[in-house]
């Protein structure tokens, strides 16, 4: 019993030490960013915890209420509570960013690792593929995809994912090549470690770590791009409180009901900025 307590205590201490070490490496800006991301994560996973109301509840009589104690961020054209909508939109917006990044990453991993570690000819082919993917700007891809698949979050996510894939592929290829030819991988090989084992032990972890940083950054970017698609009417389906859709709907009232743009606009920029900042910090502290 006491032993268990002591053990738990030691774990707690260790956790605290680890946390403080993390805080130190993140720096003040990184810590603030991490906090922001944490709040957004809570909003995404447990929105009712932060905003118990219904984000789609319509009360036309209360339309366009400016921020007030009853509605901290005001209400929209249909009298829906903007704060509640922003909180409930976190899940979709963050999910959108994460899904797009996941798509981009998976494709990027295949292309990048294939190019870096496969035979020369494969590298040449994949590098061309990457170049061509680069040449199709994300919104162009998105327009096409939405034409094929219809509007909605799915196609937008897919489009942004596809558009970011070449970037990831290029980073991965460079990184994987550098690691694969690094002295420590050579050293391991000279110790008699086989190529696949060296890949799993060294190349993978050392390539993936900087990628986490880049991916963090990418999620923020993806959120922004998907929101841009909302402007062209290609984004999330109503009445979803996805931030880009909210921002776009509110944009028309920018002079009469400023809070309709400010709330989702800030949600997008602050979240994306926090993710970007965190990503940059992570890549800075990541062992190179």
């Amino acid at each position, binding site marked *: 019993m006491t032993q268990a307590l002591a053990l738990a205590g030691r774990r707690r201490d260790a956790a605290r030490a680890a946390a403080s070490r993390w805080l130190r490496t993140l720096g003040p*800006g990184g810590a603030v960013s991490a906090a922001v991301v944490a709040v957004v994560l809570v909003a995404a996973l447990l929105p009712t915890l932060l905003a118990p109301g219904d984000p789609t509840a319509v009360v036309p009589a209360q339309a366009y209420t400016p921020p007030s104690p009853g509605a901290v961020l005001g209400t929209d054209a249909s009298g829906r509570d903007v704060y509640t909508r922003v909180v409930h939109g976190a899940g979709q917006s963050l999910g959108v960013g994460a899904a797009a990044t996941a798509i981009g990453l998976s494709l990027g991993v295949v292309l990048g690792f294939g190019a870096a570690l496969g035979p020369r000819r494969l590298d040449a082919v994949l590098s*061309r593929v990457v*170049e*061509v993917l*680069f*040449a*199709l*700007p*994300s*919104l*162009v891809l998105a*327009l*096409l*995809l939405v*034409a*094929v698949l219809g509007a909605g979050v799915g196609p937008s996510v897919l489009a942004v994912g596809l558009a970011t894939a070449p*970037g990831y592929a290029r980073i991965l290829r460079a990184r994987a090549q550098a690691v694969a*030819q690094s002295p420590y991988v*050579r050293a391991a*090989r*000279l110790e008699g470690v086989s*190529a696949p084992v060296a890949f799993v032990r060294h190349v993978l972890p050392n390539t993936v770590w900087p990628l986490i940083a880049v991916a963090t950054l990418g999620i*923020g*970017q993806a*959120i*922004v*791009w998907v*929101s*841009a698609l909302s*402007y*062209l009417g290609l984004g999330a389906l109503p009445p979803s409180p996805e931030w*880009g859709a909210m*921002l*776009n709907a509110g*944009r028309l009232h*920018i*002079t009469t009901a400023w809070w309709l*743009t400010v709330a989702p*606009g800030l949600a*997008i*920029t602050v979240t*994306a*900025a926090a993710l*970007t*900042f965190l990503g*940059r910090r992570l890549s800075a502290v990541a062992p190179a």
Partner: protein
Amino acid sequence: MTVLRWLLGRLAAAALVAWVVATVVFFALRAAGGDPSEAILGGPGSQASEEAMARVRAEYALDEPLVVQYLLQLARTVTFQLGDSYARRRPVAELVGDQLGGTLALAALGLLLAWLLALAVATAAVRARGPVARRAVGLLRAGEVVASVMPHFWLGAVLIAVFAGGAGWLPATSSDNSLRSLLLPAITLAVPVAGFLGQVMRDGLEEAHTAPFATTARTRGASEAWVLWRHSLRHAALPAIALSGWAFGSLLSGAVVVETLFGRPGLGRLLVDATHSRDVPLVIGVVLVIALGYVAVMTVADVLERVVDPRLRERVEAAATPGGEVVA
């Protein structure tokens, strides 16, 4: 010899791009539904007669199997014959040619502004002395990140509301390529890109500014400004140049939004319209021009990088030679 090979490589890339564009667009728009003959005969919702549609199908080979149609389209695209727009009944080359200038002007000014902004931020950051200035640099850094994630349409809307609707200083709409008319849309495009370039450039500048060669320049009596302009900036510019290719792509993506927002004529808007009306030849034309423009800019960036950094010229050749076989 190597120049020739490099040139051939670029040409191959262009052909490859043409192929991919033709393939992607062709199948995407075919899968998107909507009968092409309808797009030709007055667009969606048209009530063209059966005979008219039959005639158009025959004329445009739309009654051939899809594979044959694809091959025909491919043959045209790869030889850069763009054909006529379905909906607008004008040669695609002409339509695209009309809009190209506007978009290029916008993207070029956007890129220029982004560079200037990034440069201003980065130089301010390395020249900051004293605690207050350093703190300001911290804010600047946060500003860069925020700028880099600004959605275009929001930023543009705010700019319009403030500068055009509110103050009336600049036109809200942008119809020609005069500086006055280009300024707001170009700023809208430039800010996010400047955020990125600024981060990269500042990192590079901070590193170069403390590098031994910068110190050596100081030991020769160089002032901070001299070190900045003659040494550090060139180093900091390298990653920024490399990023400019990407930035240009991002500007073209942004142009789709910004041209609609400011009512500017341009490729982005043309593309949106063409996609909506399933105007296959026009979409292919626009996407092709955008993609080739991107390849061209990448090429220019490549060359520019080599101009700024002579080390890269050798690296290409060195990379081309087989390295020593290491346990493999």
